């Protein structure tokens, strides 16, 4: 048995906004073993970033963790004090944020900001040591040294994304979350960065999460995949299981809309409909209104997450179909 690095149990996170409660994450549980990467997929608004921000404790002030437990690298993340958290965040674990374009101050040089970030956890390093380590870091993400002297606006989207990856790797973390690390990029750059992440992850023996709405990206990088819909985990299995034999109708829709799997002349089939209103409590299967195989039963009962052949799925119809 490998070590469990991340253990998320029954996590629910809500946002309060204009007196409404947005149920962004509901009852999500999963584990990540050492050396593994788990992908989180789901369409926009399904709660992926909220999940990630909860794990590294960077939720905005209007968010509340309603229930659950998170154990990361042996730390009980949700009960740690803010100061203790600041000491380990970015040292033991880090994240590549979804919005990277404005992720650095526009009026300070990139190198200056990276150096400050490095000093935060390594106060004893000399200036030369910092520069050396930054240069080494840039080589790892295939960036020329001159970006240290550049301002953020002088870098392309792909370069900024690589800077953000370098920033995440700054203190050799054990656990890392990539939140839409390649989404805003063109296909070529996206492909390059995925390859780079792949080799980095292997050479640094990292563990982590890869978040994306693009099942293709996630399946390239991950051993396992968690599919989220409207804040809920609807399916969790190995990448092979999810791609070859998706069980949940939502996952099946996602897999069908992958270009490789679509029939040649057939149009890409999306999943018709939209996410439900997250401020309303639901007493049915959240996916039922968009589900092609939903029956009356699905509109009455909340499906529980069942374990079938080493994978998990939350669908009332699955047993019947297998």
């Amino acid at each position, binding site marked *: 048995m490998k070590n469990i690095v991340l253990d998320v149990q029954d996590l629910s996170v809500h946002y309060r906004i204009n007196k409404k409660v947005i149920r962004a994450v509901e009852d999500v549980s999963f584990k990540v073993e050492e050396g593994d990467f788990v992908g989180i997929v789901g369409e926009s608004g399904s709660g992926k970033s909220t999940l990630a921000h909860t794990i590294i404790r960077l939720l905005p002030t209007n968010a509340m963790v309603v229930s659950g437990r998170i154990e990361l690298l042996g730390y009980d993340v949700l009960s740690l004090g803010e100061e203790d958290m600041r000491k380990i965040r*970015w040292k033991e674990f880090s994240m590549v*944020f979804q919005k990277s374009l404005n992720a650095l101050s526009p*009026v300070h040089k990139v190198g200056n900001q990276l150096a400050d970030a490095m000093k935060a956890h390594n106060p004893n390093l000399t200036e030369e040591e910092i520069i050396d380590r930054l240069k080494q870091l840039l080589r790892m993400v295939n960036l020329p040294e001159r970006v240290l002297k550049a301002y953020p606006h002088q870098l392309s989207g792909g370069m900024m994304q690589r800077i953000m990856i370098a920033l995440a790797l700054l203190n050799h973390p054990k656990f890392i979350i990539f939140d839409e690390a390649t989404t805003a990029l063109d296909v070529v750059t996206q492909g390059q960065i995925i390859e780079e992440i792949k080799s980095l992850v292997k050479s640094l023996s990292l563990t982590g999460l890869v978040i994306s709405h693009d099942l293709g990206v996630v399946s390239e990088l991950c051993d396992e995949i968690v599919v989220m819909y409207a804040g809920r985990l609807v399916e969790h299995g190995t990448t092979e299981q999810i791609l070859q034999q998706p069980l949940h109708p939502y996952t099946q829709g996602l897999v069908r809309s992958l270009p490789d799997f679509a029939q040649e002349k057939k149009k890409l089939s999306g999943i018709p409909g939209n996410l439900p209103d997250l401020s309303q409590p639901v007493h049915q299967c959240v996916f039922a209104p968009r589900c092609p195989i939903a029956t009356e039963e699905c509109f009455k009962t909340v499906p529980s997450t069942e374990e079938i052949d080493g994978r998990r799925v939350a669908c009332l119809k699955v047993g019947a179909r297998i």
Partner: protein
Amino acid sequence: MDVLFAKYLFRRILSAVLLIVLVITINFFIIHLAPGDPATIMTGLENPSPQIIEALKRKYNLDKPLLVQYFKYMTNLLKGDLGFSYVYDQPSWKLIGPRVFPTLSITVTASVLAFTLGTYLAVLASRLRKKFGDLIFSLISYVLYAMPSFWLGLILILVFASKLRWFPTSGMFDMRASYEGFRKVLDYLHHLFLPVFTLLLIQLPVFYRVTRASIVQNLREDYVTVLSAVGLPNDKLFKKYVMKNSIIPAVTIFGITLGFSITGAALIEIVFAWPGMGRLLLDAVFRRDYQLLLSIYFLMAVFISVAMIVTDIVIAVLDPRVRLL
């Protein structure tokens, strides 16, 4: 990088020179395209003597074609000849010169103080994070902002000069005591205090509110979230990153304020009987002293242009993104 900066600087200077030329041109055509005899208009007098008309015609080539006149007007200015006020019967510069320092000593002092104090208070308000203090500051700043300057000046005179007798009510020097040397400087500063204080109270809220809003907005930026997540101490994050980003709008406004400081704060100068440019300008308007008016406008254009260039340089040093513009 440096090439970019040089190019930027060149463009700024070019546009400033263009602005000055434009003002001169507009000045010229206002006089020459207005109905009536340009020489008569220029004098600003009801019945100018034939000698004055004759002198003007010679000086500005008024009987030559328009283009020649324009050229002559330009070269006169370039030679440093600002013009002649027939109303005062003195060269414009004789009238303007002695007023430059008194005016600038009010306006520049007030602007510098308003900028430093305003941004400092804004930083303080956001560092304290006390909703109450912030509210009080904002309230006071709105009240001050809405106050007419002359009215505020009158109130201050009433309280601090007439009632408390801490400061003189008007003027630049104590006429009864003719001080010399250091004592004279002190007397000047004593007279300077209330007008500067009035203008400071008027300008301070602008700097306070602009910087305050800028800090609030910056604290919501992604870079703050990221650098804080990375582990940068809050103090360093604020002092090094948020402050530099937040001060840029205030610097821009400071530059504009400095640009207009040459014509001063006419209303305040009147209230405090301060012999400055603002009063001269208003007087010139009332007396239709076109020559003097044009001289002041020209000086104003030069001053604003220079302030603009300096501001743009400072902004470009602070914010590398503007060098692309």
